[in-house]
């Protein structure tokens, strides 16, 4: 069994080094003003060791005192309470990021086993389990990373990307059954497959070069290190991806949550741009 898998059909040759400019802006418009709005936002980049943050700023409007705390994975987030009437809630961040190594993450302090437990969003139905059995070749045991890449290929062959075909709480099983979904669903399916095979897997919310909104991908834990896999684009994550939040599933790393006590229609305009800049 090889410990350094071959990624012949994957984009990996290019050097991982690069400088990126990140701009993330979310504008939520309510049709009626709200007040006493409690919120919780992911506006901090993680302390990964494959990149460094050169410049960083963030904002929340209406301007409001923001407190910070860390979650169970040690990720920092902002929370607060906006009392005044407001019909627009806007927040975002901008940063200059210098990547100097391939995408990856050292182990966290939490036990790895929590990324093996299936949950409502990542659980597979019988069709997903049938896939799993179909592409498992019993004669040749694979390195778990190679295996996960095989699972990712399987998703690409069986699923089509279709905006609006699922929603934020669609379980992996439903997406498999209908054969379509978006990046969140592709990620949940790959997580479900990996966990069923005994490979710890988790969800990542973040930014991809060229995407207009945030993107979701997967990390699998193999031989003491987290590797990134993007099932939407069927590739190993090496460069051009900047994580913002990690967790067991999409709900676990939602970028914003808010609570207020009136019924309103809300429209969110999200713009995320990650651009590689030449120095």
């Amino acid at each position, binding site marked *: 069994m090889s410990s350094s898998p071959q990624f012949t059909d994957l984009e990996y040759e290019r050097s991982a080094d690069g400088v990126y400019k990140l701009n993330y802006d979310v504008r939520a418009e309510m049709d009626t003003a709200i007040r*006493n709005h*409690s919120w*919780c936002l992911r506006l901090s980049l993680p302390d990964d060791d494959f990149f460094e943050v050169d410049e960083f700023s963030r904002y929340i409007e209406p301007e409001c*005192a923001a*407190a910070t*705390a*860390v*979650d*169970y*994975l*040690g990720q920092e987030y902002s*929370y*607060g*309470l906006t009392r005044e009437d407001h019909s627009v809630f806007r927040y975002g961040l901008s940063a200059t990021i210098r990547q100097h190594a391939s995408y990856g993450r050292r182990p966290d*302090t*939490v*036990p790895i*086993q*929590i990324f*093996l*437990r299936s949950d409502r969003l990542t659980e597979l139905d019988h069709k997903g389990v049938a896939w799993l059995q179909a592409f498992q070749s019993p004669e040749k045991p694979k390195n778990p990373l190679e295996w996960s890449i095989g699972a990712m290929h399987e998703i690409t062959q069986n699923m089509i990307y279709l905006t609006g075909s699922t929603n934020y709480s669609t379980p992996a099983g439903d997406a498999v059954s209908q054969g379509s979904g978006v990046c969140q669903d592709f990620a949940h399916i790959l997580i479900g497959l990996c966990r069923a095979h005994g490979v710890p897997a988790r969800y990542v919310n973040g930014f991809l070069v060229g995407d207009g909104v945030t993107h979701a991908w997967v990390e699998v834990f193999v031989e003491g290190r987290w590797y990134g896999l993007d099932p939407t684009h069927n590739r190993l994550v090496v460069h051009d991806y900047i994580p913002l939040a990690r967790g*067991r599933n999409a*709900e676990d790393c*939602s970028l914003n*949550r808010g*609570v207020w*006590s009136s019924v309103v229609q809300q429209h969110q305009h999200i713009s995320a741009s990650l651009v590689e800049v030449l120095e």
Partner: protein
Amino acid sequence: MQKTQQRGHSRRERGGYVVLEPDGGAGKNREFKLGYSDLDRLKAYLNRYAITFGLFQDNTFEDRLFPFGTVPRVIGPWEFDTLEKGLRQRVHALNLFLLDIYHERKVLKDKIIPEEFVFSCPAYLPEVYGLRPPADVYAHLSGIDLVQAADGTWYILEDNLRVPSGASYPLIAREAYHTVCPNLISDMPVRESRDYPQMLGRVMEDVNPGGISVVLSPGRYNAAFFEHSYLAEKMGVPLVFGSDLEVDGEYLYFKDVGGHRARVGAVYRRLSDEYLDPMVFEPDSIIGVPNIMSVYRKGNVSIVNAVGNGIADDKGIYYFVPALIKYYLGEEAILRNAPTYLPFFERDRKHVLQNPTCVPMFCTEKT
């Protein structure tokens, strides 16, 4: 624990009376007669004061009177002391287990419990990793179910360390005896139980990092709403709903109707973990307090009971509690578990297969 006297020995009926004999009538204590008319008056008293519990059935809410057996069951002093000692021991071990399982996890490294019993359990909440509750107390109050077998032996039926319910009913019953048949209590060496709310209040003060204490109820349609209001009143603390509390910056506050704010340091919450904070758990919860987990994590508020306790009263873990007592305290368990077989282990599997009347138990979430 030795076998104790049979239940029937402590009470019997004789010509219009129920006769209670503490210590089976063997000690120096006198017997006491409780007339049938007293029992009728007790029932009338409880009905009049509407001691109720809520019930949702067929989509309608009904407030029902609490069913209550009016003839006291006598537990002798020696037996009571043993139960108390055994329960203290058990809760102490379970509290140490919770501290360990969310931090060092030595109990798994030492293979006292197979790790899948913990990691596969939905009640084990990674959300509380790195969070140390004030004074390291997780199980501030516990509702441990005891059952007495026909031969008099007491067994532990289950542990309840999440949001145990029902403490108010025996207090009210005791109150009723004091009113209806005051001699029963004053003539007999009955131990006082009515200081429960004061004890609970003291526990909350002990773990309170600053501010007032409150009782957080999900609302009047909760089955135990009567109890929430009763305990708040007896403790002399505000009874609040989620919308009466707010997190602002580093602290939790109670907003009263006059618009004043007071910092809250301890919350006796009567809603389960998944509804406590919509920012961390169930996002659609409107009975919780947004961002309360953030200030809890910072140690600026105590949540009673602690968040994540479900792992300790899980049916799969129950099997291991005697081993946990031995592991954490170096003592033999004073109170026994009800005989339980876990087919996960070869020896137990054999027993279950050879004894078809034996019902297997699996590691599932409590219902």
